[in-house]
């Protein structure tokens, strides 16, 4: 029996209009996310990688429908279809009022553990908040759930009544994970959850997340720019460049045998702790990332691509399944 994926993202576009002039008319658009499609299966960890500013975080925030809050005039197009049981919900179309009902099913872990916890609330108040909203537990039951969750993420019951400022970055991130788990969600979006932590703590937190993923039967969208971390944790990897998906496939395959020229270049930059490979060829890309306000025609990577040809400028390349489950958006490689 083939199970439905947790979420199907279809041709998602997130555009931020730029206003200018005396009467604030629209003078341009930042195409932060420009038509990407992928899906996340049950109990699957999908890694989303790309360099800074390519729209990774925007994808995550669009999928959890919190962009309107900070940017009320954001234009979201496409479909973000969640399959909760028999229900299918499109987060891209729902109003913020309608979406509230489904909030418990998708949660987020944030990048900066110093900013993601309200400094005025104790740890137990922070973890309790989603429980109060989405469950009918009594105060005692909630307390038990909180302590249970704290132990699951490697903290102790005594930590429940402390304030965030009494914790280290790694401990705070564990509190953030416990909060995300509180409502037993189907999908957790992890927005660079370890990039603010130092390396030794990173490994602990990543292992914790992998344990939790198994225990709670939850799917992850793991956004990161550290490729080795993503390869370690993910089942699938999606590579993003300037608002478009370049490559999407099984983690091992994308990491060890990338097909897209951008993925190849990105992966050649990953340091490998092996002196025998010191002569490995490193592909250095020329130039800078173009601005998402004025993107190049056709393939957005063509201005820096080492193998680009004239036909790359003609139309935006679509993902093509070159190997089973391995999708690449490049007209050159596809031939």
């Amino acid at each position, binding site marked *: 029996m083939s199970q439905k994926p947790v979420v199907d993202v279809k041709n998602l576009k997130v555009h931020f209009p730029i206003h200018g002039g005396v009467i604030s008319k629209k003078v341009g658009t930042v195409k932060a996310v420009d038509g990407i499609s992928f899906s996340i299966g049950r109990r699957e960890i999908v890694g989303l990688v790309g360099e800074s500013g390519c729209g990774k975080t925007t994808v995550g925030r669009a999928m959890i429908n919190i962009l309107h809050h900070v940017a009320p005039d954001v234009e979201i197009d496409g479909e973000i279809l969640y399959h909760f049981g028999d229900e299918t919900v499109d987060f891209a179309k729902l109003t913020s009022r309608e979406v509230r009902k489904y909030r418990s099913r998708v949660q987020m872990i*944030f990048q900066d553990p110093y900013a993601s916890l309200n400094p*005025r609330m104790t740890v137990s108040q922070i973890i309790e908040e989603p429980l109060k909203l989405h469950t009918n537990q009594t105060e005692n039951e909630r307390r038990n759930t909180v302590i249970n969750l704290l132990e699951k993420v490697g903290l102790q019951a005594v930590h429940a009544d402390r304030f965030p400022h009494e914790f280290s970055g790694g401990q705070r991130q564990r509190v953030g994970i416990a909060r995300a788990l509180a409502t037993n969600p189907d999908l957790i979006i992890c927005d660079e959850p370890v990039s603010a932590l130092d390396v030794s703590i990173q490994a602990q937190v990543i292992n914790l997340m992998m344990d939790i993923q198994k225990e709670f039967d939850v799917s992850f969208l793991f956004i990161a720019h550290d490729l080795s971390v993503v390869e370690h944790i993910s089942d699938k990897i999606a590579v993003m460049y300037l608002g478009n998906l370049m490559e999407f496939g099984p983690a091992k395959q994308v990491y060890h045998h990338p097909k897209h020229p951008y993925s190849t270049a990105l992966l050649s930059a990953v340091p490998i702790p092996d002196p025998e490979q010191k002569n490995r060829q490193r592909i250095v890309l020329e130039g800078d990332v173009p601005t998402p306000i004025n993107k190049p025609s056709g393939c957005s990577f063509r201005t820096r691509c080492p193998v680009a040809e004239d036909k790359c400028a003609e139309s935006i390349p679509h993902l093509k399944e070159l190997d089973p489950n391995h999708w690449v958006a490049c007209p050159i490689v596809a031939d």
Partner: protein
Amino acid sequence: MSKQKQNTEHVSISINRRRWLKFKGLKRGYYSFVTLLTLYGISFLLPVLINSKALVVQYEGEYFFPAILELMPGMASYYPGQQFGQDVPGEANYRHLQKEWESGTDNWVIMPVYPYNPYEDITTEGNKMYEAPSRKHWLGTDNTGRDVFARLFYAFNISISFALILTFVNYVLGISIGGAMGFFGGKVDLFAQRIIEIWSSLPMLFVIIIMSSIIRPSFFLLIFIYTMVNWIFLTYYMRAEFYREKAKDYVSAAISMGQRNRTIIFKHILPNSLVPVITYFPFSVVGGISMLVGLDYLGFGLPPPTPSWGQMLDVGLQNVSKWWMVFSPVVAQFLTLLAIVFIGEGVREAFDPKVYSRLR
């Protein structure tokens, strides 16, 4: 005690508690705060401490409590002189009664500690103008024979009350309007900001002076007039704070778990955005007091004969040779403002974010 025993190894304290402890540790600010708070508390009991009415009168077996009745709002504390067999027009003169009944009668009077009130002038028998400080009038009398010491203390109560109410109303208005602008942003912010710009360009001092010369301002009318312009500067702080806080991840987390706007505003954003306005609070009170003194000095403030430092300063400067009339309001004002500034300094120190930031 038992609570302390439970967590002997670790006691978690909230940020606010920490700040309070820090403030308590800053002796100058803390003692100023305690002193001022005590004095202000006591100043509500002024009718039984500094008053020309008697605390207790026993007259022919009956008891009267005129000063204590004055403490309670809505109670008549007026007794004509004839009631106690005194041959004076209008209200009884209790100081005279005390003297009269010193010997030979069963009647007696207990007077407050300082038996003069801030309103009685030379029309009351025995009062003289420009009397120098003495054991009778500790700080002398002014140009109409009113007791300076009594007026000073009544004015203290009025000044602080005025500044506190003014600041409170300003804060409520400024915080809610500024917060709404910051939280909702977009068009709400755009239009509110334009209205505020127009409103703030009104020359408010002249508006107050003009209004005061048309209608006689009362305590609450003055607060109303001054609030009309003073809430504006708070919206600037609050708007910016709300804009900053709402973009933080803990607010995003609250939204992503489906929290309601109301809870997000009051539970998450508001407590975290109050620091600058709380730090400013004591200085705003200083501003309120100074403003009342200024208006009273110019004659556009509270209507006479309300006791006020500004009016005392005004008549004092007209009679500079009577040093007690200038000296008293100046020193009283100086000490009060100094104490509040010390408090403000302590509050600012206690709320200093540097203490809680740590290396990342």
